[in-house]
Each structure stands twice: as structure tokens, then as C-alpha cells.
């Protein structure tokens, strides 16, 4: 059976260096660092002080959009915002006929309880009464407000997908995925397969996350995964010999995938093609991967095999590159295992030096960067890298490099051992 082809017809992005794709692309080409001292809460007594936040409070448009969004979940709001951009970019708005066989596959964020919810929990803990009974009379709110607080305990990860489906009237399949940092990579892979297997003509896919809150940060502080560098410019330095952890980021990346003939028929601009998806499980430990990199290599090999291309065709790899000592070493080892000496000629970078680690969104934002890199024929620089770790030995551009790219790969590796690789090609 001849394999269908799946193309990209829309993009949407919001992160610390841009509220839309053009802003993001401009700033990533400039290697603009979107990392700063945390504003969301007082970090004066915290060992980690930097993050790549999306500043909603100081942007009137975003503030109004967040208010209108309907419920208090920043990660979900960012996802919704990026979906709207991608939906419009793909020319799907104001056309109900197109949503007939359009679906969604989204890697959605985890939610940790807010300070207000924790205050409620602490009251609850003090007695054997139910939560409602524990709220003093003068503080009692309406039922809806009370449920809004409780929803933060019930993570309802899929609420964002239901909201998007209902608002955009999508009649195709709807999926929510969560494989930690690999979520959006898996969601793109799932969407790609949905189209290949005839489940939908168009799939809106990607991921969203916002974990710059006190509990989200604390989780990774305890695992000693976050960078303790206080200088925002040098906090996230993937593959640099002086790296000491990742910087938490917030954002969303959304891609519209479409069956090739369907896209050609409606005459929408085609931005690129996805040709390969590979995934594997480390089956090693929940918190880290084996240093030999074998299972990460397995996921890359599977994606290349799925794409049906020769390794020589890969001209650029957007690495997971978190800036932790172990991840960058293991990923480099895996890259060398897969590409051997070819690796010396493949340009490699990680966008996390600019946007931090956006967890469930990281694979999708990397994919957007990769699609645009192939389209414009360039590889974006990592200006804040001073000395590449000799144990990583990667060809990392420090200035914007123009080159003819036919195919490129994105790696995204998840906590718990989930690895995803995606192959994108120039559309011809």
C-alpha cells in the first residue's frame, strides 16, 4: 500500500521570546535570550531564580485574552492561543466544511495547585469536615468559583482539548497526550499516524505547558535538574562545558498537519513535510536515561527508517539539549552512535538556550524552529555558548548559518524514559 504524505500547512507559537510565530522566528534567529529572573512569585529564598516566562501581566492583549479564556490555567491558555494562530495560518477559520475531518492531538500540561488552593487544602487538613464545610461563611463563594479552585486539584489535562474542539467545531478525532517532556513529540507523531491511517485529513497538533510556579519549580529543584546560575544569559547553555541544569520555560507550539492531496486541492501554502516518526522507551530509570544512549539512538533510527531516507540527507538536528550535564552527554553519544562521522557535518542546536525547557511544549516549538529552518535554508545560532563540551563534540553554529537543507530531525526526550524523533523535509 502506498504511504500517504503529510504536509505542514499552519504554525502557531507563544513563548518567552514571542507571542506569535513571526516574533519567535525573528528572535530565535537573533539568538535572543528569553530567560530572566522569575516574576511569578518571590524567589528570594529559592536556590533557583531564573525562568523563561510568558509575561501575561504586562501585555494588555494577552491579559484580556487570558481573562476571556474561561478558566485559570496558564499552560492551557497558551495552548489555546497558539492553536488559534495555527488554525488561522492554515486557513481553517471561517470554513466549517474544513473542520469536518479535522482532529486534534495535543500534549497538554500538568497542573499543580495554586497557593489559594493550597490554602483551602490546609484548612481541610485541620478537620475531618469536607472542603466546602471548611470554608468560613464569609469566604464562601459561588459554586462555580469553588469548583474552579478544586479543578486545580483535579488536573483535567484534557479540558483544553475539549475546549478547542467545541470552540472550533472540530469533528475529527481528539487526543490528549502526556509523556512529560516528550509529550508534544508524541502528539505530533500520533497526529501524523492518524492522517497516514486515514483517521483524519487535517490534525492540529503540538503541546503546551507552564510550570513556572512554586510547586512545579520545586519538583525539579529537588531532583537537582534546574540551573542554579543566576545570570540569565548563561543559565541555559546546552552542550556548553559549564552547563549545570535546565531553565524552566513556558509556552506552546502548534502545527497543522494535512494530507498532501487535501492541502494541494485547497491551494493552501505548504510549509514543509513530516516524513518520519520514531519513538522508544529507555526502560532504565524514571529520572534518567542510561549513559550509553542506545535507546535514544533507537528512536532516531526508527524515525529515519520511517522517513525512508539516507542518513546523509539529514543536514540539521534540533536536539533536545536541555543543558543538564547528563542529558546533553547522553544525547550526544546517541547522535554519534546513529550518524558516526557524518555528525561532524550536521549542524546541531537546541532552542532551549533562548526559550528554556517548555516541557510538554518543547518538542513542538523545536519542530516549528526546524520547519522554518528548512523552509528558509538556515540554522539558528546559539550565541551564549562559550565552549562546547569536548565530550559532546557537536557542530553548533554561533552565528546564523545559511545552507540548503533537504531534511532535518527533531529530538525530544521525556522524563520517565520516553524518546521521540521526528523527521521533516522540504516540500517538493
Amino acid at each position, binding site marked *: *500500500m502506498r504511504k500517504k504524505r503529510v504536509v505542514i500547512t499552519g504554525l502557531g507559537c507563544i513563548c518567552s521570546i514571542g507571542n506569535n510565530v513571526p516574533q519567535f522566528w525573528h528572535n530565535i534567529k537573533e539568538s535572543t535570550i528569553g530567560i530572566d529572573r522569575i516574576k511569578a512569585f518571590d524567589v528570594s529564598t529559592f536556590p533557583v531564580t531564573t525562568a523563561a516566562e510568558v509575561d501575561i501581566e504586562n501585555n494588555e492583549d494577552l491579559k484580556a485574552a487570558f481573562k476571556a479564556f474561561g478558566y485559570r490555567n496558564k499552560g492551557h491558555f497558551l495552548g489555546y492561543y497558539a492553536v488559534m494562530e495555527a488554525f488561522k495560518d492554515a486557513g481553517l477559520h471561517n470554513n466549517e466544511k474544513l473542520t469536518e475531518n479535522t*482532529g486534534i492531538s495535543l500534549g497538554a500540561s500538568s497542573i499543580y495547585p495554586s497557593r489559594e488552593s493550597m490554602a483551602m*487544602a490546609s484548612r481541610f487538613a485541620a478537620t475531618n469536615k469536607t472542603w466546602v464545610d471548611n470554608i468560613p461563611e464569609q469566604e464562601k463563594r459561588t459554586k462555580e468559583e469553588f469548583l474552579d479552585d478544586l479543578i486545580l486539584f483535579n488536573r483535567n489535562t484534557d479540558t483544553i482539548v475539549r475546549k478547542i474542539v467545541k470552540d472550533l467545531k472540530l469533528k475529527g478525532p481528539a487526543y490528549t497526550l502526556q509523556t512529560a517532556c516528550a509529550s508534544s513529540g508524541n502528539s505530533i507523531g500520533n497526529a501524523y499516524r492518524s492522517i497516514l491511517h486515514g483517521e483524519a485529513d487535517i490534525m492540529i497538533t503540538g503541546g503546551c505547558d507552564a510550570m513556572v510556579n512554586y510547586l512545579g519549580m520545586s519538583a525539579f*529543584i529537588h531532583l537537582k535538574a534546574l540551573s542554579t546560575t543566576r545570570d540569565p544569559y548563561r543559565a541555559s547553555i546546552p552542550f556548553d562545558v559549564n552547563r549545570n541544569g535546565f531553565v524552566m520555560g513556558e509556552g506552546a507550539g502548534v502545527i497543522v498537519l494535512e494530507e498532501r492531496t487535501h492541502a494541494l486541492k485547497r491551494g493552501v501554502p505548504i510549509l514543509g513535510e513530516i516524513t518520519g516518526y520514531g519513538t522508544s522507551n529507555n526502560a532504565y530509570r524514571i529520572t534518567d536515561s542510561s549513559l550509553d544512549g542506545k535507546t535514544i539512538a533507537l528512536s532516531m533510527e526508527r524515525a529515519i527508517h520511517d522517513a525512508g531516507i539516507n542518513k546523509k540527507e539529514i543536514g540539521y538536528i534540533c536536539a533536545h539539549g536541555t543543558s543538564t550535564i547528563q542529558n546533553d552527554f547522553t544525547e550526544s553519544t546517541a547522535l554519534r552512535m546513529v550518524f558516526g562521522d557524518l555528525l561532524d557535518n550536521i549542524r546541531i542546536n537546541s532552542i532551549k538556550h533562548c526559550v528554556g525547557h517548555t516541557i510538554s511544549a518543547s518538542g513542538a516549538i523545536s519542530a516549528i524552529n526546524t520547519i522554518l529552518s528548512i523552509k528558509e535554508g538556515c540554522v539558528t545560532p546559539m550565541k551564549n555558548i562559550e565552549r562546547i563540551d569536548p565530550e559532546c563534540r557537536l557542530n553548533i553554529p554561533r552565528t546564523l548559518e545559511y545552507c540548503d537543507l533537504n531534511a532535518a530531525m527533531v529530538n525530544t526526550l521525556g522524563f520517565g524514559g520516553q524518546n521521540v524523533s521526528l523527521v521533516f523535509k522540504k516540500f517538493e
Partner: protein
Amino acid sequence: MNNQSEYEAVISGIGIVSPLGSDKQMVWENICRKKTGIRKAVHDDLCFNSGVPFISPVDYMHEFKKLNNRKNKRFMRRNVLFFLEALNLAIEDAKIGKQVADNHQDIAIITTCGDAGTDFRLFLPSVLRSIDEKSGTREVNMKIFGSRGLALLDPYFLIYDLLNSANCFAAIEHGINGDSNNFIMSGGAGFHSVKAGWEVIKSGKTKIAITGVTESLLNSAEMQYLYRRFGYPGKAVNGDNAIIPYSDEKEGLFFGEGAVVLILEEYNHAKNRGAHVYGKIHSYATCVDLNPELFSGDAGGEGVMRCLKKCLDMHEDDKKNVTPSLVITAGMALKNEDDGELHALKHLFHDTPGIHYATFKPNFGYIGPVSDVLEFVIGLLAMKKEQVPPVKNLGNKARGMNFNVSDKEYTASINDVLSLAKGLGGINSALFVRKI
């Protein structure tokens, strides 16, 4: 989405952990005896303080094999332990222990984990020590939290709280490196992992895919939220009549917990090794209702109809040609969901004779995505045994439910099973399997 590939996928192993037991035959017999796993919540239950009167728990965790020998047990939530137990049972049932050991790099593992709510007990000790008593709000003070509370936080709460942990721990326990993915949704999404496993087999990427679903949401925070959001039937006096789907007299559901693992296998691979085959996957579909309410389904049934039509690849003019022998309905016991389901089923099948119906929420309670696959498994067993199981709490009193249901089990020729799953907020999925 239907089966048009050179590779076909069959179900060759089942493992379940349910409120009615983990032995398939025992669960089947319990269903035939119209037993329920729903019981009154008691003081020792985690959710007791939520005020929820009835739950459908797994009360026999102490019987799990290997439970006490598991490494890292302290990082595993109940849903992870359920999943690992169900996985062992499925591997045993499919007799693929050696295959898993020898081909661990190629075996896929795809899961749907229920979105079990945050267990606030993980944070509470640290939070209670970080409250600014002077403020009067009992809110967490960030300065105090950073200097004192942070150190009191369980250093491994992230692992305990990880939404894909069932998938990861299962992969670690069996050394599985193949295609890996994890869906996270409420009810209606149980079939998503089956779909993804089916795709991997159809495309020839693997011969065996482990697919499964797990949920344990019986903690007080989750129960507070779900019951206040969706309500529960005040008239229930005991577990036996706690859930009555399609009823005019009462509405609402009670929650349970459990896990199900299905071993999917490429048909010729299963045939060549002489595996027992429960059924062949024929088609699958999923979608969401388009009514604007985020937390309830469409009473009109348009979404259910769309889902069923896609699953059966139906068109208006050929609907009479589709005759599933047995339809497993969702029967959520929520007004909008039940109305929508009844409308859709009547519209699609009302004039089609010979279809048998069954529904199992009164037996198991509502277990989020686990319900979908657990109820489907009962359908598979019915197909194997050529017996239609009895339906509890339904009979002819149910609202508009004039379908072919019985309160006693009976013999019938069942060649295929269509299982319909619904989740809170209008998620629909359908899976259609046929006898080999």
C-alpha cells in the same frame, strides 16, 4: 478508521484488575450473577472525608503477585500498581513471557492513564509549614516556603505524580524499548491506546503491542471535585442500586478504580505460535461532542452518532447493512450522556433486528478510561462464550430503553462486538471487533 492494511491485529491476551476481581472467569461469573463492586465508603478509604457515600474500589491489592518485591514501590501510585498487575496477568494469558524477554526492543507499549487528581497529601506537610499565620489568609508565603517548606517537600513527589508513570514503570519492569506513548484523558479515551497499538501493528512496525489503561481517582480531592461537578444519586441506599443507567428516577454515577491490559498481536504471528485469539480489531473511531458545555455531553447525540458512523464506516443509505451482534453501551447514568447515547443508538439501529445490548456501569462503577476497555473485555468474553450477560438495574423501566436487554444471561451467536465509550464532557470512542 478501519482495517485496510496487509497486517491485521488480534487480541491475544487480557489482564484485568477490577472491583469485581482480577480473574477473568470470576469477573464473568460475577457479572452473570449481577454482582456489583460498588460499596459504601468507610473510614479507611482515602476519599472518606470527601463525603462521597459509595465507591467501587479494588479491595484486594494485598493479593497482587510480586507486589512486595517491586523495586521503587514507594514511587508508585495505586494506578501504577494496578497496571503492573494487569500487565503480568495479560502476559501470562497471552503466553508471551519469552517473546517479551527476547524481543523487548521491538515490543510497543502504549497506555492511557486516567487523569487521577493531584494527591494533596504530597504537598501538605510542606505547605502547612509555609503559611504566614499573621496574614490570616492561610496562603503559602513564598519566602517561608523557599526557606523552610521546600526542604519539607517529598523530594520524589514529581515521580509519584508523573502522568506517564504507569507506562514507564511497566517498560522498566519488563525492559520494553519499543514504540512508546501515553494518552491522558478521562473516560472515552480508554480505546486510544488500543488504536495506537493497532496502528503500530498495521504498519508492520511490531508484532506485539502492549496496550492498556489504568485509573485510581478515589482520593478526597478528586472525589470532592467530581461529585460536586457532576453530582451523585441521593437516592442510593446500597451499592446494588447505586447506578441505574437511562433511568427517569435518578441520575448520577459512582466512581471506581482498576486497570486493563490488552495484548495486541499481528494475526499471522499469533496464528503461527498457536495463540488463543479473542477477536480481530475491525475498526475504531473517536470524537468529541460539539455542544458548548465543557463538562457535559450533547443530549442530542450528534457526537455519538458521528463516532459510531465513523467506526462502522456507515453512510445514511447503507446503515441497515451494519449489524453488530452485541453492542456494549456506555450507560453513564448522567442525563445528557444517556439521552445522547439513546438517540444515537435508536437512530442508527432501531430498525435492525438481532442486536443484543449490554451495559456494565452498575457492576463496576465509573472508572474513567478503564471503564471503556473493561466493559469491552466483557463483550469479548461474551463473544467467546456465546453468552449475552445480564444487565443489572435496567429492565424495561429505563427511559426509552426498549432495546434487546435481559436481566438474565442467555445464549446467542455473537460474531462481533461494538463497544461504545463515553467520557465526562462529551468524549466518545467506539471499537468494533470481530470473531476470527
